[in-house]
C-alpha cells in the first residue's frame, strides 16, 4: 500500500520527501506576533471557547499549499480565526474592521 498517497498532508513525520532535507537547527526566537497568537489561544482555552484539539483540527484543515507556506503561528491564527467565525464569537464585519484599523 502506498502510504505516501494516503497520508494527510499535515501528517509529515516519517514522510520520505522530508527526510532528504537538512533540519534547520539554528535557534529562532519568538516574534511579537508569535507571542500574541499564543496568548490569544491560551485565553480562548481559559474561557473554554477553543480546545487545543480544535486548534489542531483547524490547522490540519488548511489547504496543502497554504499549509506549507504559512509559519507555525500563522497556522494557529488561521485556525483560531476560522473557529471564532464559525462559532459566531466574532463576525466577518468585526474581523475586517479590526484588520483595517490595525
Amino acid at each position, binding site marked *: *500500500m502506498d*502510504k505516501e498517497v*494516503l*497520508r*494527510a498532508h499535515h*501528517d509529515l*513525520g*516519517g*514522510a520520505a520527501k522530508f527526510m532528504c532535507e537538512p533540519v534547520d537547527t539554528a535557534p529562532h526566537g519568538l516574534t511579537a506576533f508569535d507571542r500574541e497568537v499564543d496568548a490569544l489561544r491560551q485565553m480562548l482555552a481559559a474561557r473554554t471557547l477553543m*480546545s487545543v*484539539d*480544535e486548534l*489542531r*483540527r483547524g490547522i*490540519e*484543515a488548511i489547504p496543502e499549499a497554504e499549509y506549507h507556506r504559512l509559519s507555525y503561528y500563522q497556522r494557529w491564527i488561521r485556525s483560531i480565526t476560522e473557529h471564532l467565525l464559525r462559532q459566531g464569537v466574532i463576525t466577518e464585519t468585526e474581523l475586517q474592521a479590526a484588520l483595517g484599523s490595525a
Partner: protein
Amino acid sequence: MFMAGETVRVKNEWPETSGPVHIRTPHYVRGVVGQVVRRLGEFPNPEDLAFARPAERKPLYHVRFRKGAIWAEANPDDELLIEIFGHWLERP
C-alpha cells in the same frame, strides 16, 4: 484492554481519506505490528474533542516498534516508542 508485552497491530485504517477528521495515529505505523510497553491511563478521545463532541475516555498505550518494520532504510535494531490509543490497536 491490552497487557504489557502483548503483540499488537495498528489498524490499517485511513479515515482521513473519507472526510474531515482529527486523528493522532501517524500514517507510518498504520498496519505495523509492535509490542505494548505500558498502559498510560485513560484520556478523553481527541478525535471527538477536536469537534467539540462529548469525548469518551479511551486507554492510551506506549507501543514499541522495530524501526526496520516501518522504514526499509532504518537500522532494523533501532526502536520507535509511540503513544497510541487502544481503539487503534488490534490483535494480529
